[in-house]
């Protein structure tokens, strides 16, 4: 007897422990006794490397090289999940990405992932999987009551039911439906994904998707032409189906040829090979996504879990193979019914027996390979049912020779319902399902023919044609997806292109490789390897088994396994007028499950066409959408998470703010301190303190985020006159002027102080976050409208750290700094008057100082090189100590400007406000013929005297008006909405004045000074406010001008 390959290494003790504890031993024995592992076969598994895993808490063992699916099968775990709608027990149907049933919750905690396909999950040590969509357990699921009611729940039943009474949908019906649908559990809401992800850009001449023999053949031809080639294979292993399907390539076994092709490709410098990397989608202009799973087979090993390749290829070869179609007979969803090719895979690749007595049903020759494989592995083939009256070709002869009982013109009437296959009723294919014989079997292999995987071909608009002989859609070479140059950029190769026979596949793939290489600009020669396989008889399209099955059979014949769509559902949809394939899909949910109809689409189409009395090509297909197979959201997001979710812009003093209590406010990608909060203080208290201190002593504001643009050239003045509503060309050198910018649509878009630096140079300040936008705005006009004007613009925002030194003691502070440095810029009123600027040194720092004020106080904005910003800030803080200097944040800035009646872009403006609304007519030049926005402001609605205009607002009791409140007018409008006559744009408590102050836009406002208007709050209170002048503080402007 062979010693069991799985020595007790993983069973709890070390491998040389002679006495594992009794419980473990018992478990182990149980596992072994249930194993369906075959003694031989299993080319992908390494029997010297057993791997422990758990399924629904039960410990099981598999081998390195297993998928979770093959390991479950080897542990005789036939039942793997429950279906979406009827909660029917389901087993494995397929062996790859097309599997609809075997979806599990994988992993735990911050590495849990729902809906993972067992067939594409490589087994690893410690894997823990849970089956889905059942309660309380997989074996006993109360949801199966839906199955009993299936007759009452046909396609679209919910559109016809649950209509009355109205509240029941939201409160009763919908919650129940939602809970019973939904498949896997949601990941824990409080945990963050433990893994990281990344992207990678890659450029190549030819991208080959698929590492089967067709992909490798195409890659060889393309690579030999000198083209830069990238080959993607979704599985861990190369070679695709060929090693399982047999035949000979260049006189050798396919496996050997694959190895040699790989060696050859690996040796070529112009070739990159990636396995575990799926071609997920094809997009315009040669863009393709590769989805590389780096650590899914070994979680937690460090490094990114998935890498998304953003590929630009001149040409894309889709060598994505073909997928076998199920046959539609009653009970085709019972666990143990499997695609014939999948069954062959499980035997050959993983050495697992899906059963001991198998019925094979087919309409083509390929399933004979399965029968022969099973036979060879010692598994009894009870019957081979061939729907074709004359049966198959050479393979049939071989099968009969080996003693396999082949019956032609036969099919399956039904498989007995249950959690596994027990009995199979056999009937004439061309009948209504009257059973002629019932055989005992524990598995069924079915083959309804093959459909090329045309997804990637179709994603970007490639069209399909119907192939009558093979009864499938294949890429129409005349109508490929078109690239940037208007020519095709995708070439299908091998069975993805239609050919199924090995020799044809290789020849077609070589042609495809050559075609792609040539289209990418290389000279290529299509020299295929020679493939030899047995001749096959033509397949026979079979869309229903038996062909004239009665309704009770059709209601049990599944098309879409996961979404529980049956033949009868599609027929019902057609009967009710859902004739378009898109209607049928949506009405029945056919093909909308997580397998996206890889198994069900063509079968469903055929049933629909038949129901409509139409031909399949006339019915057409639904649109194929990316991705080919679901890809992780993590991979799509890439590296952008946590700290690097988005760029965070920092001023040179950012770290100081952070260390000194900054309560941050996001402004674009910048962070600005909202206030500097001290220990024991609330944010609100901090704001009050900052305001009072700045008004009484001196405050510092980090104004570095304000945009600073240098505009220079002989035409700069003329240009700025177009950009601003004001006249900037007449500004004198050394002076500053507050300027407004509008969009061409007339609305106020930005403001800031403009300084004239010299004869042909201006410096324009923008709002925080406005720098890039306004810079782009200027460049746009300069490059696309006035390209003959001589103006250069440079954005110097980040070159400078800018500090506003504000308050009655600001000058004293600067003078002290100068004194300490032994001299510096004269900052007296005479030397540097209000609205002027000067270059020089303050406290030893080279700087430019502007006498401008946004607070109404004596104020200097001082710009130093960014590299000196922190040092300058430190110097101001140190020297200012005796004057009570404090930093202040944006909220203090906002309140102080509101006290002064200064407008704020984004508060008083919202993209619908023109300068005229804000009483800013003084800043709109009447002398200029033109500026951006001028013509727009002449339109009828813009000159309407009823436009709301800026005023100040004060509540009668000194309280603060609610933010965003609207002023009530009389009556209602034609739609029954209460009329409004204005709104609050800014509202604050002013600690300076000890009361609430607000600004707002009010209809005829400036003419209604003193009137009291009402603002209904959302709290049930109506606030009364008096219309007042918007300047609440220092109306004469004496303080800023001292």
């Amino acid at each position, binding site marked *: 007897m062979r010693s069991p390959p799985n020595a007790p290494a993983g069973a709890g003790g070390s491998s040389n422990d002679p006495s594992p504890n009794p419980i473990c031993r018992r478990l182990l024995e149980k596992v072994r006794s249930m194993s369906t592992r075959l003694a031989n076969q299993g080319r992908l598994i390494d029997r010297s490397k057993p791997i422990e895993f758990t399924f629904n808490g039960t410990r099981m063992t598999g081998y390195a090289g297993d998928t979770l699916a093959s390991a479950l099968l080897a542990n005789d775990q036939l039942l793997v999940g429950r279906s979406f709608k009827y909660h029917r027990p389901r087993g494995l149907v397929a062996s790859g990405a097309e599997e609809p049933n075997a979806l599990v919750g994988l992993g735990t905690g911050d590495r849990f992932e729902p809906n993972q396909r067992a067939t594409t999950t490589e087994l690893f040590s410690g894997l823990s999987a849970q089956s889905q969509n059942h309660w309380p357990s997989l074996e006993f699921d109360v949801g199966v009551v839906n199955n009993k009611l299936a007759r009452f729940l046909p396609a679209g039943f919910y559109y016809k039911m649950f209509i009355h009474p109205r509240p029941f949908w939201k409160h009763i019906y919908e919650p129940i439906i939602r809970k019973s649908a939904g498949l896997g559990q949601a990941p824990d809401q409080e945990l963050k994904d433990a893994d990281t992800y990344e992207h990678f850009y890659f450029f190549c001449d030819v991208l080959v998707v698929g590492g089967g023999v067709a992909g490798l053949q195409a890659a060889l031809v393309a690579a030999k032409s000198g083209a830069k080639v990238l080959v993607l294979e979704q599985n861990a292993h190369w070679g695709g189906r060929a090693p399982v399907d047999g035949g000979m390539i260049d006189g050798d076994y396919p496996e050997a040829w694959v190895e040699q092709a790989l060696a050859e490709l690996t040796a070529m410098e112009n070739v990159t090979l990636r396995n575990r990397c799926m071609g997920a989608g094809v*997009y*315009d*202009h*040669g*863009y393709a996504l590769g989805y590389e799973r780096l650590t899914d087979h070994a979680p937690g090993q460090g490094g990114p879990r998935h890498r998304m390749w953003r590929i*630009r290829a001149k040409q894309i070869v889709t060598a994505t193979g073909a997928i076998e179609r199920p046959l539609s007979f009653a009970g085709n969803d019972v666990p143990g019914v499997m695609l014939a090719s999948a069954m062959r895979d499980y035997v050959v690749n993983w050495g697992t027996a899906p059963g001991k007595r198998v019925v094979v049903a087919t309409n083509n020759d390929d399933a004979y390979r399965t029968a022969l494989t099973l036979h060879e592995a010692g598994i009894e083939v009870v019957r081979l049912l061939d729907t074709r009256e004359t049966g198959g070709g050479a393979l049939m002869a071989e099968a009969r020779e080996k003693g396999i009982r082949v019956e032609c013109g036969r099919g399956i009437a039904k498989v007995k319902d249950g959690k596994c296959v027990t009995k199979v009723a056999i009937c004439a294919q061309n009948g209504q399902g009257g059973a002629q014989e019932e055989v005992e079997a524990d598995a069924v292999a079915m083959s309804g023919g093959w459909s090329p995987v045309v997804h990637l071909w179709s994603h970007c*608009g490639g069209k399909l044609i119907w192939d009558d002989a093979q009864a499938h859609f294949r890429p129409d070479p005349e109508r490929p997806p*078109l*690239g*940037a*140059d*208007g020519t095709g950029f995708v070439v299908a190769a091998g069975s993805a292109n239609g050919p199924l026979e090995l020799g044809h596949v290789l020849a077609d793939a070589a042609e495809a490789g050559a075609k792609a290489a040539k289209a990418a600009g290389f000279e290529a020669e299509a020299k295929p390897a020679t493939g030899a396989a047995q001749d096959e008889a033509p397949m026979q399209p079979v869309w229903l088994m038996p062909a004239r099955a009665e309704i009770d059979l059709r209601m049990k014949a599944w098309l879409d396994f996961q979404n529980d769509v049956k033949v009868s559902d599609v027929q019902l949809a057609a009967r009710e007028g859902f004739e378009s394939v898109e209607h049928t899909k949506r009405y029945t949910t056919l093909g909308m499950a997580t397998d996206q109809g890889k198994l069900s689409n063509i079968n469903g189409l055929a049933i629909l066409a038949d129901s409509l009395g139409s031909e399949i090509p006339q019915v057409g297909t639904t649109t194929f959408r990316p991705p080919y197979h679901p890809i992780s959201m993590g991979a799509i997001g890439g590296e952008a998470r946590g700290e690097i979710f988005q760029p965070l812009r920092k001023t040179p003093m950012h770290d100081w703010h952070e260390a000194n209590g900054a309560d941050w406010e996001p402004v674009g990608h910048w962070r600005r301190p909202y206030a500097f909060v001290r220990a024991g203080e609330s944010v609100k208290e901090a704001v009050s303190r900052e305001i009072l201190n700045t008004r009484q002593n001196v405050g510092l504001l980090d104004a570095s985020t304000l945009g600073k643009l240098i505009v220079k050239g002989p035409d700069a003045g003329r240009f700025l006159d177009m950009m601003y509503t004001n006249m900037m060309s007449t500004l004198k050198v050394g002076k500053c002027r507050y300027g407004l910018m509008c969009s*061409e*649509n007339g609305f106020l878009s930005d403001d800031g102080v403009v300084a004239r630096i010299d004869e042909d140079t201006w410096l324009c300040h923008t709002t925080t976050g406005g720098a890039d936008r306004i810079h*782009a705005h200027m*460049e*746009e006009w300069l*490059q*696309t*409208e006035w*390209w003959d004007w001589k103006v250069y613009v440079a954005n110097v925002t980040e070159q400078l750290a800018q500090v506003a030194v504000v308050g009655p003691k600001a000058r004293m502070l600067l003078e002290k700094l100068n004194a300490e440095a032994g001299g510096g810029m004269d900052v007296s009123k005479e030397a540097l008057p209000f609205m002027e600027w000067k270059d020089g040194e303050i406290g030893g720092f080279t700087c430019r100082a502007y006498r401008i004020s946004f607070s109404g106080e004596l104020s200097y904005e001082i710009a130093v090189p960014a590299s000196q910003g922190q040092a300058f800030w430190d110097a101001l803080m140190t020297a200012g100590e005796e004057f009570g200097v404090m930093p202040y944040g944006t909220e203090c800035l906002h309140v102080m400007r509101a006290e002064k009646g200064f407008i704020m872009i984004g508060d008083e403006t919202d993209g619908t406000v023109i300068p005229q609304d804000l009483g800013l007519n003084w800043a709109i030049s009447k002398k200029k*013929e*033109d500026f951006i926005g*001028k*013509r*727009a402001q*002449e*339109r009828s609605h813009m000159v309407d005297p009823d436009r709301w205009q800026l005023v100040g607002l004060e509540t009668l009791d000194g309280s603060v008006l609610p933010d965003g409140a609207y002023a009530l007018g009389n009556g209602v409008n034609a739609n029954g909405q209460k009329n409004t006559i204005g709104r609050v744009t800014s509202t604050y408590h002013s600690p300076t004045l000890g009361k609430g102050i607000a600004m707002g836009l009010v209809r005829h406002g400036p003419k209604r000074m003193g009137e009291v208007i009402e603002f209904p709050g959302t709290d049930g209170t109506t606030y009364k406010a008096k219309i007042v002048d918007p300047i609440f503080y220092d109306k004469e402007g004496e303080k800023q001008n001292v």
Partner: protein
Amino acid sequence: MLILECPYCGVKAEETELHAGGEAHLKRFGPGSSDDEFHDYLFMRENPKGVHFERWRHVNGCGKWFHAARCTTTLEVFGTYTAQTSAPPQEIRDAITAKRPGWSWREFE
């Protein structure tokens, strides 16, 4: 995911390096124009199914605005050219004619 070749720096820029700037060759109407002229200038766009001329800025690159001739139903690009012109250059128009005989767009054909 378009690729457009910047005519200034030659980079075959992918869309994320570019900023789309709407229809090309607009004639600006300012003060003195009629309401209709101004309205059409600001809001009336060709929005064709087929050949279109549009503005792009190589924003994550050389920063220059340029023009592209592109088909809106296939995303085929016929060519890119300087923004400092008020009409598509002849070689661009010829390139389009070769692919889309009989095309027209505003006054151009």
